[in-house]
């Protein structure tokens, strides 16, 4: 077991993948000499050279489009999109090509590409640097979408994503990059797409992923002081979404609140609410509640604490779901 920040865990994970498989490439803007604006690729350029760690032109569609071509040639590109808000120039290549090419070829070609996206708010950034666009990828068949919440998952899920023969959109919780945690570098990891119970409880289930898991664990701690037992499910994967684990929790607690930074409208919470209500209609003591962003552009930094789901907004939802 080693203590590692999430950023370091990702870096180590990329390094391991580059070492283990000569076909793995890292590419994106500033990922080379600079090591990425968040230093996730720090040192890789020095150690693996410009043939493996590639500074690209400033063109996201080009990055993903050429990554597809490299994958067709047998490579396994790990692509960095510098910030969440800059993935959209590549959206066409992701949705119309990356997601569909395996099916188009009736399975005859594979596209093992990971698209790393530092996402979410809370870092006091300017516009386009704080968004959570997971809905826009989860809705698209052919893509897998995951997001780790802690260092150990960051370490393992990245390697699993790189080993996966499907395109994986890998959302990195940028405001948690510097949070440290234990990484069991030699233990066998959980399945990439399994949700886990991060905190057991009996009264209410909180389901979250990425940066919001920490908030939910804080909520559970705060609620415990008030004598309420909250179960926190760390979803880890958004597509596929492990409904079985959520359902099992809900059948126990009877109450569910889904928390994410992305706007509530058409967010992950909607899909979970719809499906869990269908699966556990009689087990639910209250409607599934959702806490998330508003239907508004991500606000300027001085307002983001108001915009982002925090302890109090989640506790408020817990109160409301218990009040049924």
């Amino acid at each position, binding site marked *: 077991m080693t203590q590692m920040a999430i950023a370091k865990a990702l870096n180590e994970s990329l390094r391991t993948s580059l070492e283990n498989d000569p076909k793995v490439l890292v590419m994106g803007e500033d990922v080379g000499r600079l090591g990425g604006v968040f230093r996730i690729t720090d040192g890789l350029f020095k150690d693996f050279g410009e*043939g493996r760690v590639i500074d*690209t*032109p400033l*063109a996201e*569609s*080009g990055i*993903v*489009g*050429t*990554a*597809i*071509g*490299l*994958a*067709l*040639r*047998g*490579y396994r590109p790990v692509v960095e999109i510098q910030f969440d808000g800059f993935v959209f*120039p590549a959206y*066409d*290549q992701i949705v*119309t*090509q990356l997601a*569909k*090419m*395996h*099916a*188009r*070829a*009736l*399975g*005859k*070609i*594979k596209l*093992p590409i990971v698209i790393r996206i530092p996402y979410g708010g809370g870092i006091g950034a300017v516009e386009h640097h704080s968004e959570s666009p997971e809905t826009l990828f989860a809705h698209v*068949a*052919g893509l*897998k979408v995951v997001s780790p919440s802690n260092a150990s998952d960051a370490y393992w899920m990245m390697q699993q994503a790189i080993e*996966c*023969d*499907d395109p994986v959109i890998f959302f990195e919780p940028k405001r948690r990059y510097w949070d440290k945690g234990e990484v069991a570098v030699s233990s066998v990891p959980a399945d990439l*797409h399994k949700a886990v119970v991060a905190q057991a409880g009996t009264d209410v289930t909180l389901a979250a992923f990425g940066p919001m898991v920490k908030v939910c664990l804080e909520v559970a701690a705060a609620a415990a002081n008030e004598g309420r037992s909250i179960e926190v499910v760390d979803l880890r994967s958004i*597509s*596929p*979404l*492990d409904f079985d684990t959520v359902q099992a929790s809900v059948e126990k607690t009877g109450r569910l609140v889904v928390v994410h930074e992305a706007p509530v409208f058409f967010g992950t919470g909607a899909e979970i609410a719809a499906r869990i209500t269908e699966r556990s209609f009689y087990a639910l003591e209250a409607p599934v509640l959702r806490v998330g962003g508003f239907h508004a552009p991500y606000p300027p930094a001085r307002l983001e604490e108001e915009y982002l789901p925090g302890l109090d907004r989640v506790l408020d939802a817990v109160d409301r779901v218990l009040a049924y």
Partner: protein
Amino acid sequence: MSVKSTAARRTTRGGAKRRGGEPELVQLLTPEGDRVEHSEYSIDVTPDELRGLYRDMVLTRRFDAEAITLQRQGELGLWASLLGQEAAQIGSGRATRPDDYIFPTYREHGVAWTRDVDPLNLLGMFRGVNNGGWDPNENNFHLYTIVIGSQTLHATGYAMGVAKDGADAAVIAYFGDGASSQGDVAESFTFAAVYNAPVVFFCQNNQWAISEPTEKQSRVPIYQRAAGYGFPGVRVDGNDVLAVLAVTRAALEHARSGQGPMLVEAFTYRMGAHTTTDDPTRYRSDEEREEWASKDPIARLRAHLDKQGLADEGFYAGLDAESDALAKRVRDGVRGMPNPDPMAMFENVYADGHALVDEERAQFAEYLASFEDAPAASHGAAGSGKGH
């Protein structure tokens, strides 16, 4: 735009950008079928090769005509004809080596032919039984790409991989005059130049993007775009199969020898409709079409063969028979092409599986099975079976 701007545009187009009113155009065979020399591009072809090119073009055209007929008969949902572009496609396709990799649009039936892709395979997507579906690695011929311009980036990335592997191969990316406006194509030029990737960008300028003439995409010839990205561009007579062969060979060799990308603009003409759903009479004149009919790429090579006495009646008769056989094989093949199994929808969405797909597959199977148990008319007035 205003009159002013239109005038300015005309000046530019008629002016410095074209030499003597027409852009420079590499030609090795005149429309009358006479060989001409070109200082930079020359070619030696044996009579056998000439007849081979002729045969390729004739069979490709026949296949294309058969596909149009099959569409009219309802056997295909759509067809994108290559009529008029046979020289551009056969010439460039025959310039490739087996280890070169091809990224086509949706119209490269002639190129596919030169890569030994079974014509029947090309028809699957137009019939609606698959969205492509051949194995690209079998003939180093990628799937057809419908989203305009996308494939130029795939080609560039593939070529980056070729260079990385130290392989002695090249990649060729097809695209149209319309596609030249897409950001993806520009980005592919940038990536190819920056990484010195061994890729040939092959633009078939057939002068139309559905109803829009090339002036809606560029006010200068498209081959000129390459220079601004730092690699050579050349315009070739796209109806001259020899010139296309020579220029594409040189471009591929340029790429293979570590000199990086090159842009070839094959100046040709889409003699048919954009696709079988299109009605070109709405936007272009008969005269234009007729003018270009006189530059027909097949007639041109035939004139050459005949003038030089390189093919006899037996050759043409044999080719006719071969054409008929091909048409029949295609016709029968298409008609016999089964509809896919409904459950195929759930296959190959992912390589490594996905829980939701599994769940939906199971639910749908159960749903379908429910009709088998039930009496024929499952739902009062509904009753006409599943899947309305």
